[in-house]
């Protein structure tokens, strides 16, 4: 069975795949983790998969419009955006506002990647509070647009960049020691909703439905919570 999932789901779905394989002997779960936008492009170009889990409603809606989805998509988890800085916080970023300071090296995921699009929405929200030049100043600090959200977190973990926008769930054990989190005020933040659906071209519809049951069930939700997601 093949699962196409947003890059932010890498760890949680990896763990769930192990549980799923144990419960269904002989079944192998192949997972492809990329930005939701890349996965959508691949599906449009005829890539075969059984399940699509997107980090944004937009990509799932587009998949639905193109007739790629078998059933009504289901929101299974939510995720909030945070700002991440390297351990020790070399650029001394305490608040969202500090991102506009000249010389801060900010990385974002590429345009079209949900995590980055949410970041821009947050900057729009913050514009109202910090003044109209805020968003422009922050965006002028961007030094790189990485392939997906995990790549931008890695840039910060290595200390090459001073800050990035990512999901709370990207604060994984792998990066926890090298990255610090700065929370975004709730009033400005965006809550990302993750829809999941069985695909029309699925060779293994039955298994795919079982995967959805696992993900939306108690055990799946617990695992996702462990990895920093919030239940839907």
């Amino acid at each position, binding site marked *: 069975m093949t699962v196409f999932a947003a890059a932010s789901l890498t760890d949680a779905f990896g763990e769930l795949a192990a549980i799923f394989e144990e419960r269904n002997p002989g079944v192998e779960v192949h997972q492809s983790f990329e930005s939701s*936008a*890349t996965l959508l492009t691949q599906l449009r170009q005829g890539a075969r998969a059984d399940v699509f889990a997107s980090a944004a409603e937009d990509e799932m809606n587009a998949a639905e419009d193109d007739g790629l989805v078998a059933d009504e998509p289901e929101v299974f988890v939510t995720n909030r955006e945070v700002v991440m800085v390297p351990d020790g916080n070399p650029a001394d970023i305490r608040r969202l506002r500090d991102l506009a300071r000249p010389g801060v090296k900010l*990385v974002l995921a*590429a345009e079209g990647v949900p995590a980055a699009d949410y970041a821009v929405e947050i900057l729009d929200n913050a514009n109202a509070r910090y003044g109209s030049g805020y968003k422009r100043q922050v965006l002028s600090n961007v*030094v*790189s647009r*990485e392939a997906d959200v995990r790549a931008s977190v890695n840039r910060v973990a290595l200390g*090459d960049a001073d800050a990035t926008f990512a999901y709370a769930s990207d604060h994984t054990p792998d990066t926890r020691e090298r990255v610090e989190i700065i929370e975004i005020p709730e009033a400005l933040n965006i809550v990302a909703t993750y829809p999941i659906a069985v695909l029309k071209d699925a060779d293994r519809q039955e298994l795919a439905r079982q995967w959805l049951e696992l993900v939306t069930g108690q055990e799946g939700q617990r695992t996702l919570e462990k990895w920093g997601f919030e239940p839907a």
Partner: protein
Amino acid sequence: MKGKGGKGISSRVLRGDRIASGVGVVALSLVAGFISLPILSLLLWTVSEDSWRAMATPVAREALLLSVKTTSISMFFIILIGTPAAYVLARASFPGKRVVDSLVDIPAVLPPSAAGIALLLTFGRFGLLGEHLEAFGLTVSFTTTAVVLAEIFVASHFYVRQATVGFSQVRRDVEEAAMVDGAGRFSAFSRVTVPLAFPALLAGAVMAWARALGEFGGTIIFAGNFRGITQTVPLAIYTQLQSNFDAAVALSVMVLGFAFTVILSARYLLRKAAELEV
């Protein structure tokens, strides 16, 4: 070939020849078809989906300009430093030569993504060298310099290797004769050795250039991805794939045309050089 009668030999040879050439034709068609089909698909998509319009977008223009700029700078350094280095590898013998020789080959067998990580750990802000550069206020990551470094790292092998082979095929006595005739070591090198090795040097330069143009893994991991600064054509293609498939196709066609032009010019130069020698 064994045969008893004259006629037997020729017909058997003929049949063997036919089978051999049949296999050859099939194999060659497979090779040609396998290469031309994907190229054809790219072109067909461009024409039918109007994606050629995307070639005029700023993203495409900036990416192509940056690719031209960075590969030119890379090739300048590769030829400037690679030529004397290759000459020493071809002519001199010194302790540790085998080690150096193998070292030159490593970037060719190393996956570019591994090269990117290695470069990041060297020149990144907290890298082995990067940390010291940072102390002088020099930052390499997220700059065009980083792109050039990645290109030189992965591409120099192809030039140095070919040039070494080219130089070692130039007979020593020809060089020595030039020096006996009063030419200095440097002018013998530049007037005699380099022209004689020219076809090999050019072939190596084209290979290295092609490798630099295609550089992706090292650049995206080490240099970053920003329009006009580090986003070369391969990175732009990958980035456009996220949001605009037509633009990604258009960029692929553009780089294909660019590569084709360079290969044709190189062939033309080689032919000219061969004519001059005759």
